């Protein structure tokens, strides 16, 4: 009987704590994913990427980059 009471109590404590931990973990993971998405969006929006297919594209990029090299 004592064992039954003990197990019954343990079961409910575990369930409640498990739910709390799951909620905390969910909020933590969700927050991290949101931060990463925002970071990627910011980066994609501000960076300029060129379509590099041919050697002409490469030379165009070379000429463009030369503008930022000191004389």
């Amino acid at each position, binding site marked *: 009987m004592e064992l039954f009471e003990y197990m019954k109590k343990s079961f409910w404590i575990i369930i409640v704590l498990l739910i709390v931990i799951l909620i905390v973990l969910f909020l933590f993971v969700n927050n991290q994913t949101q931060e990463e998405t925002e970071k990627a969006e910011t980066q994609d929006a*501000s960076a300029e990427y060129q379509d590099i297919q041919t050697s002409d594209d490469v030379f165009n990029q070379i000429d463009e980059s030369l503008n930022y090299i000191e004389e």
Partner: protein
Amino acid sequence: MKNISISTIILSFAILIFLTIFVYAAGSSEIPQPQPTPTPITGFLQDDEPPVRNKECDSIPQLKERILCRLKNNKEGIKEQVDYEKQVPEACRTLKNPTACIALYKKVQENKCYDLNGIEKDKCFKDVVGIKKKLSEENDKANKARQYLILLLYDLEERVENAVEEAKITPNSGANVITLIIEAKQLILDNKPKSEIVSKLNELKEEWSSLNI
């Protein structure tokens, strides 16, 4: 009763901590992204196999002759994955401190940028260099521009090597262009002024236009 309550709580926590490990592991595991098949990067020598021919190339004192030797080897099917732990890229050899230069080559190799195309390739280059916004708005833009130029020039080098392998151009023509590319990279890495770099790049453009690739 008090004893049972304390032990119940301790036991509950122990079980929960144990279970949490699995929950956290499941939540933080990454889905493996399909990686493009690596294409061996050529142009530098490797100490291992096949040892004789590549060591022969490496011991040639003139840059152009070394490149020609490797291009001929590549054409004959001796193409290798470069191991930058063991060998120094040609463009980094003349530097007093080649560590940063080798690190750049290693990073672009690890990211497999040269297996990509179009915008993805450019994005990969810029990620390697650390360009996160417009180059004009970047801090340390001169240094980043120089690193970005190295990667672009390496892209041209890859195109020449492929053209030689596909017999679109002769190894000799390929060696002429690659020599100019490496000389331009050496000027960039050596922090030479823009005028010197532009002059070398103009030579390269002229030579490139005669290749038809």
